[in-house]
Each structure stands twice: as structure tokens, then as C-alpha cells.
């Protein structure tokens, strides 16, 4: 197995791209990543593209070939593969690229993620996202993602001392970080009261507890570490790539307030890298809802179960805290184009490790990403080092 490094990252602005198509989003992100890596398209050996549901969002399947074509690579006959694991599609696409390079099969590989969600109405979008849960046992019974995460929140708040205000502090912190991120969908600061007075979505989750519907794309270029210096002076090493699965339905879990796949993927990643939580300088976690960030921080082992709310409210996860969480603004403020989110997390950590994060820069040498599909049926965790 070869060591792998990231040599280029690129991300579109996240938001409502009314006048930009699915393919244009991808091409924009891809071009930014190639430019950042200083390579041209004909050097690419393979593409892995994370996308959850273009077939339903824009009625386009066969995404791998489409993207290779519109990236100008059709005549090179570059292998291009679409990867799908709901909201973890991006993280999984990155993992496939890493495995490909590590195995020695391919050298210069682009991992990308893209989702165009605003071509359909909100109701249709919510239903499409619900297909990441168990359609027969959850979706047909009326469960949507806000509903499922609300069940997690209710169970969690019943068992652990998490207050509504502490939960809101997650969104406040992520908007604070988003305000410093030029690609973030929401760059406005909010208060605890903003969250608590927003519309109820699924008790106890309110509008500002939920990540938005977003268009966006992100891409990264990975190569064998031994070749990284050909392209850049600041390669970022992939120290661990871990993935875990769990039951697709929430009700089949041992414990709905703990995402066991996060626990498993986190442990595998730490073992691969030979690192512990204290070695991680920042982490991008999958905060599709505020409760998800609380669970993620704990399930990755950064604190004990039941402590993440208090630590968040105390500022431990802020930019200047002990463990900065979601410096990008997270899914909540940066936005959540489902297939692109996992790649955006990689982009953010690479940007931080290179020291290019501007106003949201933290002091970091090692960063982690945590990308979740569904309510935790797929979890992908990566550790990256400067």
C-alpha cells in the first residue's frame, strides 16, 4: 500500500445556484482543483464522483460518464465512477480515490462530489432525501430526516443533560464560522434566540437546527505521496481512511443516541493513523442537524457521552477552542449539497492544514473529517496531516 497525498482542492460557492446547471457546478469545482494542483486534465488517471440522487434531483443518471465528458476527458477515455452512499457519497468517493492510489492501480485521481438540489421544490427534495433512510420501514411510515433526527434528539435529551440552549449553541457557532468562509451559503451570524424563535420543524428541532438545501460541488486531486512534491510544496497526507456501516433503519439500532458506525469508523481511523483524539487539531463533522454534531463529537471520542452540549456552549468547539469543530461552518452554515459535502470537508481540512483558511484559520497540523449517510448507516472518517 502506498501513502497518499492531496495536492489540490476546489469548491464552488455553496448556495442556491439558480442559473448554474449540475454539470457546470462540477466542472467549476474540478477546474478549481486542477488549477490548485497545477495539473492539466490529460494527466488524470481516474475520476470518482460522489452524488446522491441526480436521477431524482435533475433526472440525470450515468453521472460518471457525464462528468468525464464535461470535464473534457471523454476523448481520453478516463475511467470515471459514480459513488453513492446518500449524504456520505462525497466522503466515500474520496475513500475510493485514496484506495485506488494506495493500491498502485492509478496515480493521479480526482475525487469529487456534486449535488444540484434546488431544481425541485422543498417537498420533493425532502422526499428524495428520505430515500437515504429505510423507505419501507421509515419512509412509508411518514418519517423524514428531520423527524428521524428529532427522535435521536428526544432520546438523547431524555437520557443526557443536554439543554435546548446548548443544542442551539451548535448552530450559533457554525454560523460564526460560516461568516468567515467565502464559499458558505450562510455568512450571517445568529444568536441562541435566533434558533429558539425559529419555526418548529420536528420537535425539538427548529429551522435553525437544520442544514439547508444547497447546490454545490467540490473536488480534490490525490496522488501517491512519493510523487506529491512534483506538483506542490504543501501536500497534505492522508493518514487514515475508514468506513463503517450500520442498520439502515434507526429503530434497529442498539442505541439511537449513539451512531455506532461513527464509533467504529473513528476507532479504525485512529488505529490506522496511530493517533488519538488529543492529536487532532480540528474536525469537520456531519452536522446535518445540531444534534448530529453533538453525537459526532462524542461518538468520535472527543468527550464523554452527554458532555458535548456543555462543551459547545462553553466554546470548546469554537475556532479558538480546545477542538475546533466545523471551521467551514459545517453543513448548517456552509450548506449541504449532499453528494458534495464529504469532499468539501476534505477541502476545508486541507485548506486549514496549509494555513490558507484566512479569518477562520486555526493552528493545525492534523485534521479529521466525518461524513454520514442517512442516520448513520454509512460513516466515512478520514484523518489528514500537513
Amino acid at each position: 500500500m502506498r501513502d497518499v497525498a492531496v495536492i489540490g482542492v476546489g469548491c464552488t460557492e455553496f448556495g442556491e445556484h439558480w442559473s448554474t446547471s449540475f454539470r457546470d457546478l462540477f466542472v467549476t469545482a474540478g477546474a478549481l482543483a486542477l488549477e490548485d494542483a497545477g495539473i492539466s486534465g490529460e494527466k488524470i488517471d481516474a475520476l470518482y464522483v460522489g452524488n446522491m440522487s441526480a436521477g431524482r434531483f435533475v433526472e440525470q443518471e450515468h453521472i460518471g460518464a457525464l462528468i468525464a465528458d464535461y470535464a473534457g476527458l471523454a476523448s481520453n477515455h478516463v475511467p470515471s465512477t459514480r459513488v453513492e452512499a446518500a449524504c456520505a457519497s462525497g466522503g466515500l468517493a474520496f475513500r475510493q480515490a485514496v484506495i485506488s492510489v494506495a493500491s498502485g492501480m492509478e496515480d493521479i485521481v480526482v475525487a469529487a462530489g456534486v449535488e444540484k438540489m434546488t431544481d425541485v421544490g422543498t417537498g420533493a427534495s425532502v422526499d428524495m432525501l428520505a430515500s437515504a433512510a429505510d423507505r419501507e420501514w421509515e419512509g412509508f411510515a411518514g418519517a423524514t430526516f428531520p423527524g428521524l433526527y428529532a427522535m435521536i434528539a428526544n432520546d438523547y435529551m431524555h437520557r443526557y443533560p443536554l439543554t435546548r440552549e446548548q443544542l442551539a449553541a451548535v448552530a450559533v457557532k457554525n454560523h460564526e464560522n460560516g461568516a468567515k468562509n467565502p464559499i458558505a451559503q450562510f455568512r450571517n451570524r445568529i444568536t441562541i434566540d435566533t434558533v429558539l424563535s425559529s419555526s418548529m420543524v420536528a420537535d425539538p428541532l427548529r429551522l435553525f437546527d437544520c442544514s439547508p438545501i444547497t447546490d454545490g460541488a467540490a473536488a480534490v486531486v490525490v496522488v501517491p505521496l512519493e510523487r506529491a512534491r512534483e506538483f506542490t510544496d504543501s501536500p497534505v497526507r492522508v493518514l487514515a481512511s475508514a468506513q463503517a456501516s450500520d442498520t439502515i433503519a434507526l429503530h434497529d439500532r442498539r442505541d439511537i443516541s449513539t451512531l455506532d458506525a461513527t464509533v467504529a469508523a473513528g476507532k479504525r481511523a485512529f488505529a490506522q493513523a496511530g493517533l488519538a483524539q488529543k492529536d487532532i487539531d480540528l474536525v469537520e463533522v456531519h452536522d446535518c442537524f445540531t444534534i448530529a454534531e453533538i453525537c459526532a463529537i462524542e461518538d468520535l471520542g472527543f468527550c464523554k457521552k452527554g458532555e458535548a452540549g456543555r462543551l459547545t456552549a462553553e466554546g470548546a468547539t469554537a475556532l479558538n477552542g480546545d477542538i475546533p469543530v466545523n471551521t467551514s461552518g459545517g453543513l448548517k452554515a456552509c450548506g449541504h449539497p449532499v453528494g458534495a459535502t464529504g469532499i468539501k470537508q476534505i477541502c476545508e481540512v486541507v485548506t486549514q492544514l496549509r494555513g490558507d483558511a484566512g479569518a477562520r484559520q486555526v493552528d493545525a497540523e492534523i485534521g479529521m473529517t466525518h461524513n454520514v449517510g442517512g442516520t448513520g448507516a454509512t460513516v466515512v472518517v478520514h484523518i489528514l496531516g500537513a
Partner: protein
Amino acid sequence: MVGIYSYGVYIPRYRIKVPEIARVWGANADDITRGLGVFEKSVPDLDEDTATIAVEAARAALRRRKIDTGAIGAVYVGSESHPYAVKPTACTVGEAIGATPNMTAADYEFACKAGTAGLQTCMGLVRSKMIPFGIAIGADVAQGAPGDALEYTAAAGGAAFVVGEGETIADINRTCSFTTDTPDFWRREGQSYPRHGGRFTGDPGYFKHVQGAARLMFDAMGTGPKDYDYAVFHQPNAKFPQRVAKMLGFTDAQIRPGLVVPKLGNTYSGSSMIGLAATLDVAKPDERIFVTSFGSGAGSDAFDITVTDVIESEAFDRAAAPAVEKLLANPIYLDYALYAKHKGKIVMQK
């Protein structure tokens, strides 16, 4: 100069409060009221439709000023809810006000801006001396599907403007339009209720087109927000016109007299025209009014208007027809059941 000779408004007396609609659909009334800035909306009576509203508005305009109805050479009615798919509302209005048969007439549809499109048509016909007077009407019994976001605002009402040249109560200094093919809101043939693109109706629809037309006008006239005493925008809710006014540099004070939506709702084709009428209700000679309509699909018509001293002369009797403020006073409130009956939402037999 070509301009407004007279104007009239009609608003049905019935209302339903937004919280009553929210109650039926299990929605949070405070969130919706706060989100829209709309508290209640007008509801037509059982026997009221776009034709009756258009006739009432036209008659109100003719009460305010003696005009030889035989000299009215054109009637245009803009609406999304013409009673007939084929058979013009405009002929009914022409007949009711005594303008037939030496006149042209047509029904217009351009979502919420068909009325101002009629106003532009009348301006052209009058300015080219093809007709002495024309009447442009925007009227709707607006449709909103049960439970849809539109249902909280879709209201009933209309305004009529008599366009002529010479002794106008308000000169229309210029009009210009900004139009694109933007599918933000639509209703197909045979469908009972319009559909919309959710948030897509905002930035790519309303805000792009209203600002587009407004800025065309500023450029054409060499003006800016400070040159106007009042501004009126299409008002599907209270938030959109307030936001676009701020984006363009108008103040709350400038839009206040014409912001009728909080207690009226969205009268679709009537919306910006009733806003203009409410502004003319209080405007004084030499005051200048900036008007921009919006119709989904999508386009905006902007008008630069200067009130003349005729508005306070003996030739014009503003008090001969009720002001918008009076039409909005003393409503009769309906519960959702009666509202559903009034709106024909109860299907007795199919």
C-alpha cells in the same frame, strides 16, 4: 402628456385572518404571519368574480370623473382568474360601463402584471391618437391551493385606471419593462390552482425583474430613489416589497401609503395597481410616484408618474368613490368553512 384621467378600486368586504387558515392546516400562525407580514386577506362573495370586481372598479373610476363613456376606445382587463377561458371579461366591463360598441377590448394574462401591461397598451393607443380614452384594469379572485403557501395571501380585488391625454390627474412620464422567460410560477390550462418554484420565485423571479425594471427607469430618467415621493411595488406579501425597496434605496416612508398587502393580501393582477390607487388617494399635486409591477413568468413594468393639480380641481372628485383605506375598513370576517364556500373550494357534486 398621456397619463391617468381617473382611477377606481373595488375590494370585496369579506376577510379571513391568516391564523384561521393556519389553524386548519396545523401550521404555526405566528411563524406565517411574521414570515409574510400579512394578517388577513380579502375574500369574494359567492357571486363575485373577476368580472364583477373589474366592473365595480371601472364604475368607481367613472364616478370620480365625468368621462363620455362613448369616447372610451379600449378596455383591457388583466387577470389570472378570468371567469371564462374563452370569452372576454373586458367585453362585460365595456358593456357594463356603456363603452360598447365603438371600442376594442381584450383580456390580458401575465400573472400578476397583466393589469399594468394593459396600462401600457392604453398609453400607446392614446398617445398615437387612435383612441381618446382607454381603461386598464387589473383584477383577480386569486387562486391558492388549499394548504399551499399561496393560500395565506391569495386575495380578491381590482383597480381600474382611465388613461387619457391632457387634463390628467397624474402624468405618466415614462414606462419601461424588463421581461425574461423565467418559470417561477404557472398554472396550466385546466388546472384549478397555480404552482410555483418555492424559493425560486424570489431572487431569480421577483427581485431580479423588479430591480431590472426599476434600474432601467432610473437610467432612462436620470433619477434615483430620492427623486420620488412615493414608491409602489408588486406585493405578494409584505416582505418582498419592503426588501426590494430597501435594495433599491427607497425608504419605508416612501412605500407606506401604497403597501396595502398586510390587510388585503395579494390580489395578483390587482396588487401593484391597488397600491398605486392607495397612493393616489393621498398624493398631492407635483408629487412623484415610482411604480413597479411584477408578473411571474416573468416581467416587471415600471412607471414614473407625476401627480398634477387636476387631482385637487373640480374636474376630479376623489371622494366620489371610496379610498382604498375605506375599502379595507369594517370587514366581515369568515371562518375557514365559509371561506371555502365563498371560494368554491367545496365541491358539492362532480
